[in-house]
Each structure stands twice: as C-alpha cells, then as structure tokens.
C-alpha cells in the first residue's frame, strides 16, 4: 500500500433507510488511491445497497465525498433483463458511448483471445457466465475510470472463471493507477486480494488489514455460528 496516498472517497456517518428498515448504520471509512478495499458481509448485510448509495442511486443520510471529477466504473452483480434483449457485445458497450478503438483496447486488457471482430458481434445472451462477467468488467473500464466498484464478483461463475476474474482484476490493478472497492460475502476473496477490509452487517463490525482483523471471534459475530476461519485451497 502506498503511504500517504490521496483520499479518493470519504464516507462519514452514513445511514441508509429503506421501507423504514435501517440497512446501513453509522458507517464511516476512507478509500485511498491504489487501495483494494473489500466490504465483507453475509447476504443481506447491505453491501449492494452500500455500492448503490456510493453511486448516488439511493437516498441516504451522512456524508459521501468523492475526489473531484473522479471517474467511477461500476460492475453490477448481475443484469437479469439483458438476456431478454437481442443485443451484441459491441452494441452493449456502445450504450456507454465507447469508440470502436476503445472497445478493441479494452477487449485486449480484459483478456479476450477470440477474434475481436467476430466476437463483438456475438449476442450477449449466448455468452457463458464467465465471459459475461468479463464483459461487465469491460463495461466498467470504458472511459478509463479511476476507481472500480465491483459487486460480488464471484456470483454465478465456476471456480475456473472466478480465478480468471481475480487474476484479471489484479492485473488491471497492477498495471495502472486503479483503485478497487469490491463487496463480497466470500472470505477467500478478501484474504487473497485486498489490502483493507470492512466487515459489515448493517453496522460496521471490524476494519483493517484482512489477516489482522479477521479473527474467528469477528467472523463469528459477522456470520453467526457456522463459519470457520479458513482459506480456500488453490486450484
């Protein structure tokens, strides 16, 4: 981690209420340039809500302060309606006003080895879930963002694909001045990939370097009885 890096995002006393239920309570944190910050928590902990709130999509109380003119790339968890629409990869990426040249470059950087001209004409509905997730990363990368907000990168992907998404993210992070904020319920992701973790179950439970703060007691508090502290073995 780079010391004394500039702060790109500052969140102070964030509260989100939805249908009279508190989803996020009193959350404060900072993201510095170059961080890979993970928000870890069980399903229903308010992780997706947090990302949407940061994007300015949901109403909230408290302070969310982004660095001036920061460019945000958002990778959503899933897009259930997209399979109803006959749309090619190229057309989908062009909804974000990407040029042909930019699409080609991003295709290279997300590691598609297929012949680009042919592949871009492919219908989104025909992609495997691993390919689709990479397209979502490509979507987020259009416009050269400073920070990526990534919602549950593991969802719906087989282990092989999952591994590729993380190597891909790691590669992108190493290559440029990318800051990454991802939310997940998957412990192994945090341990392998991020340098800072915030545990969230409606209210913040812990924060710090993953290997230091993710003690069995904390995880017990976060997830309840069943969780053991272990690292997924490598494949």
């Amino acid at each position, binding site marked *: 981690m780079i010391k004394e890096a500039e702060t790109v995002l500052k969140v102070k006393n964030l509260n989100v209420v939805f249908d009279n239920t508190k989803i996020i309570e009193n959350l404060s944190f900072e993201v510095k340039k170059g961080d890979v910050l993970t928000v870890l928590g069980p399903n229903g902990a308010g992780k997706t809500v947090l990302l949407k709130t940061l994007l300015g999509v949901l109403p909230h109380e408290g302070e969310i302060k982004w660095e001036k003119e920061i460019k945000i790339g958002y990778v959503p968890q899933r897009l259930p309606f997209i399979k109803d*629409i006959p749309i090619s990869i190229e*057309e989908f990426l062009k909804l974000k006003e990407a040029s042909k040249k930019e699409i080609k470059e991003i295709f290279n950087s997300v590691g598609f080895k297929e012949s680009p001209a042919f592949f871009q004409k492919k219908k989104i509905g025909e992609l495997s879930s691993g390919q689709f997730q990479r397209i979502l990363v490509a979507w987020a990368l259009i416009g050269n963002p400073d920070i990526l907000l990534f919602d549950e990168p593991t969802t719906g992907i087989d282990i092989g694909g999952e591994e590729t998404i993380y190597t891909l993210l790691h590669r992108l992070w190493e290559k440029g001045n990318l800051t990454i904020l991802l939310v997940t319920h998957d412990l192994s992701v945090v341990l392998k990939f991020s340098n800072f973790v915030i545990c969230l179950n409606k209210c913040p439970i812990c924060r710090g370097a993953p290997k230091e703060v993710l003690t069995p007691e904390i995880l017990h508090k976060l997830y309840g009885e069943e969780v053991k502290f272990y690292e997924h073995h490598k494949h």
Partner: protein
Amino acid sequence: MERFLLSLITGIFIGGTAGYLGTLMLSKKMVLVAGPLGHLTLPGIALALLYGFDISLGAFPFVILGIILIWIFEMRTKLSMEALTAIIFASGVAIAFLFLPIEQAETALIGNIAKVGFTDALLVSFLCLLLFLIIKKIYSKITLINISEDLAKSEGVEVKKYNLLYLGAIAIIVALGVKVVGGLLIAALVAIPAATSRNLSKNLFQFSLLGLLLGAASSLSGILLANFLNLPAGPLIILTATFFFLISLVFRRG
C-alpha cells in the same frame, strides 16, 4: 379506392411505429402495460363514437389517465401487474358499455380503419414520423434503463426524463393504434411484431428494424386481406402478425 389507399397508409404508419416501439417494451414486460391502457381507452372511444369526433382524440385523455393510474399503482402499492390489468380491463369495458350502444361496440373493440379520411391520414402519418424520431432518439438510453436502471443512473442518465418521454410515446401509439385495431387488440399490435423480431434477430439493430418492418407488413397484409375478404381489418392485422410469429418460431435463433 382512395379511401382504401388512405386506410392502407394510415395502417402502415401506425403498425410500423407500434412495432418499433414494441421492441423497447418487450423487455421488462412493459407490453403488459399496453393491455390495460388499451382497455381503458374504451370509454373514450365510446364518447367519440357517440358525439362523432375522432376516436384517437377520445382515447388520448384516457390513456394519460391510465398511465397516471399505472404510475400510482406501481409506485404506491405492491399490487401485481396482473391484478392491475384485471381491474383496469374490467372498469374500462364496464364504463364503456354503460352508455355505448351495442351496435357501435365493434369499432370500439376491434377498430375501424376504413373510416379514415384525408386529413386524418396526413395527421397520423406526420405524428407517426415524429414519434419514430423521438423513439429513435431515446432508444439506446431506454435500452440501458431496461437492462438496469441502476446502471443507467450510475452513467448519469436522467432516468425520470427518459421514462416520461417513453411513456408519452406509449400513450400516443396506443391512442393512434385504437383507430386501426381497437381497444382490445392494441396490446397485440405492439407486442407480436416485437416478439417475432426477437426470434429472428441477432442484435439490437436487426431487432428494432425488423420490429418496424413486421409491424408495417402485418398492417399492410391485414388491410389487403380485409378488403379482399370483406371482413374487418383489425382482427386480420393481428392474425397476420400472429402468422408471422408462428413462422418465426421455425427460424428462431438461440
């Protein structure tokens, strides 16, 4: 002969525009909205028939009312679209037949394009052209909103503004469409060409273009058939559209 040509032109313009707009409405099941809206136009059509003014003009305020109702129901209550359809359908039909003489019911329910005059045809063609340009302008933004409203918002798309334009376009096409196929069949005029097009298309460009062409072709062949068989055009337009749909099932891609 001149009347026939006028009805043909009117039908093609409305059918094409409805098919084009239908491709936007097919995802997220927005076509379901065209059903209750169509039914709700019936009292308006009844008024127009009784007092002898334009059917679309009578239908329009009721479509607007319908859109406001749908907006309130969707936003303020957790009522399902099916329940909504049933309620609006029933009320629309019930109110219309309180005061519409049964002999005039046919026009209200399944349309009557043979009644179209010259100014009518001109006005409709102009409105459809304008509508087409508006839909073309908002097409990619609405597609993004259809894919994910959050994703659209995160890209800075003014979702409310685009949704308003979109609903406005739906209102106009429903009001115009009842002229051709009536309050009962308007949902089909929007939905079927789009569904056929989806079966045949590989990408968005083909999808929207084919929706437009199939809508226009259904109207064209339906009206031709009606003239030839001396039967009402509305049902034949919808049946032609259905016929195209059945053929498309054979050639369906993925």
